């Protein structure tokens, strides 16, 4: 992405601030995987993996990996106290039943209505949807963490997604390298601006209508 590690952590930290006591949270790959580093001590969270882990803990040190204890991306993790293993059907049952409180994931595009397009680039990349559709449709809160613009400088927040949708009207919050947006019934709202950017900077780089929140903050 060509984004500095500092900014990646800032975005992860902002996403972490959405997590409340006792939540069950599913994290996508990339920046979302940095989220656990930014949780306050004493916050009891169960990280959920599609392959059948509830209560995923930190990555083990080199040499301590267990080939049979990996996250959905195939990389070694650990299990916290109170965690458990289950098969994939149960892991997805938690999602579809609405027992997963939040999913934090990356995206290619998000529309002002909260449409999510993060799984396919026609003619280029067809990785398959994996668990993204279930998570997008059924997690109680969907938080997208992504760059404000693509490599051509075009806004990834758009009026209508040009890429095929993962799921329509599912995104609740977008955290970019410039700002935080919420998606509600009345469309997109700018909630926070990351300094040194200005409201104007953000709006210029946002390719759809955006309302500025009454409670706008800068950070």
């Amino acid at each position: 992405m060509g984004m500095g590690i500092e900014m990646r952590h800032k975005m992860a930290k902002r996403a972490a601030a959405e997590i409340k006591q006792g939540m069950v949270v599913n994290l996508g790959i990339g920046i979302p995987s940095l989220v656990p580093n930014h949780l306050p001590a004493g916050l009891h969270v169960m990280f959920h993996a599609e392959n059948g882990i509830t209560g995923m803990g930190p990555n083990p040190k080199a040499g301590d990996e267990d080939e049979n204890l990996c996250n959905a991306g195939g990389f070694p993790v650990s299990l916290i106290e109170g965690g458990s293993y289950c098969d994939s059907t149960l892991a997805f049952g938690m999602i579809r039943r609405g027992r997963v409180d939040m999913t934090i994931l990356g995206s290619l595009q998000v529309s002002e209505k909260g449409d999510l397009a993060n799984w396919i680039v026609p003619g280029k990349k067809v990785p398959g949807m994996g668990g993204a559709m279930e998570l997008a449709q059924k997690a109680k809160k969907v938080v997208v963490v992504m760059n404000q613009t693509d490599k051509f400088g075009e806004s990834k927040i758009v009026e209508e997604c040009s890429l095929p949708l993962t799921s329509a009207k599912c995104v609740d919050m977008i955290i970019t390298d410039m700002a935080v947006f919420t998606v509600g019934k009345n469309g997109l709202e700018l909630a926070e601006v990351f300094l040194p950017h200005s409201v104007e900077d953000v709006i210029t780089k946002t390719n759809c209508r955006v309302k500025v929140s009454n409670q706008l903050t800068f950070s």
Partner: protein
Amino acid sequence: MDNRFQKITTVEKLLDFFHDGMTLMYGGFGGVGSPPTLIDAILQMGVKDLILIGNDTGFPHIGIGQIVSQGRAKQITTSHIGSNPVAGELMTAGKMKVEFCPQGILAERIRAGGMGIPAILSDIGMDNEIVTNGKQICTIDDKQYLIEAALTAEVSIVYAKKADPYGNLIYDKSARNTNPVCAMAGEITIAEVEEIVPLGSLNPEEIVTPGVFVDYIVPSQGVNWKWAWE
């Protein structure tokens, strides 16, 4: 006891969840694995017109049979009432509506509810009016199937051997039966457990119901009925 997830509580604090006319799902099979302390609390409260969902109606004085026998249910979705003659009498007298469903399909419908699956297709009992009554049929490759809708309930009460503070559950032998599926299908799931153990003391491989599905944990006072074989 460590209660960091605030799930461990007492039956008294949960009474507000029970009310006249509610849908109530219960674990257990012939009374085995039904939660005695919760059933007793519901009885004492005097709630009525319950819409029950569960494997069977127990025996007249065993398990959910206690609630059924006292005429507290206006409707039940179940697979068997044979061991509780009072249930049959109430049905015949028009005092309790009974929807019969083949046992394994009933368990699957409850599981579907718990897993967020809208319905399953079934080929069980297709030639039987009591089974097909009021149900939609769909045709795939010239073969007909029943659409068996998922079942959920406002509250689901289950019985387990052990819970940790997160609500991870393990069951006891054949008292497992329908409990794991009922534990997933409640909007609110209450687990009555024989023992509450510290977080980390259950083998994570052995946990049958992840605590994700469990909202409240109450200690069991044990069975207050005499078994049919006693």
